[in-house]
């Protein structure tokens, strides 16, 4: 089970950007979603999402809006900006290249 420290640096950013690319989500939902989709393999230490979210917000890749949840509570919802969408494409492409290269190295004997 991978802890966040084991995640390649910058990978958390990619995961967050990807997770909110379809619809705005609050922090807890982002953590849950990453866990679910990765089949519980990626156990992001939930709290470490927040420094990442705030950093991405300062870079204007994501924007935040306070809104009501289904249960009627106020929560901070994050969504992608145009710049964030471009960044997601760049990082996703980088990741594909990197993981493909590592795969080749690992599988070649």
């Amino acid at each position, binding site marked *: 089970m991978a802890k966040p420290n084991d995640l390649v640096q910058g990978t958390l950013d990619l995961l967050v950007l990807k997770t909110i690319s379809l619809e705005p989500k*609050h*922090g*807890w939902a982002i*953590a849950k979603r990453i866990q679910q989709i990765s089949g519980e393999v990626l156990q992001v*230490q*939930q*709290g*470490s999402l*927040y*420094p990442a*979210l*705030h*950093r991405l*917000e*300062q*870079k*204007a890749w994501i*924007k935040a809006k*306070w809104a009501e949840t289904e249960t009627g*509570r*106020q*929560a*901070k919802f994050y969504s992608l*900006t145009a*710049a964030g969408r471009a960044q997601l494409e760049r990082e996703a492409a980088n990741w594909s290249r990197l993981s493909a290269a590592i795969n080749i190295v690992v599988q070649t004997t």
Partner: protein
Amino acid sequence: MVWARRLRLRLQTLFRRNRIAQRLDVEIQFHLEQQIAENIATGMSREEARYAALRTFGNPTILKEESRDTWGWLRLEQMGQDLRYAFRTLRKSGGFTATAIFTLALGIGANPAIFQLLDAVRLRSLPVSTPQSLALVQIKGGNHGFGISNRETSLTYPLFEQLRAHQELFSGIFAWSGSDEVAVGQGSQQRRGRALWLYASEQSHG
């Protein structure tokens, strides 16, 4: 307009820091409560659910700190903390603070006072129309053999008269000499003092 948005965010994190910090507290509180509710739904007791939520979350205080660090202005914040700390410390030791402030005040006050004096005496030009054209006439190499004194600027009156009559360098020339004590005024208003005799040609500005 990414840079405009970034600038706005930077200004917000500078001027509305406390408000944003409060909102971060609310945000993290909401997260923990969501997790606690989920844990309770899986059959944990309230207490268990709270501990489990904190375990999966990590240390909220440290994570809040890390989030704040991404807002920038870290140097400024630290400087503010240092200043506040300095003020607190100074307030606690009144005698030391008073002495330090007094010493500084004395030093700062003495500087302009001394400068003002020097400025008035040495730096400011003389109150005449073209101070740069004023010159002091003296006999090069001293005044030996002219019978007055060894001061280079000391001339006898006949010598001054010759200078005044024949010099062509200046528009005018004047000389001065000190007097013995003289009485000025009459009766009870009379004061004694030293006077300065001035000998000038009509054109001189002095």
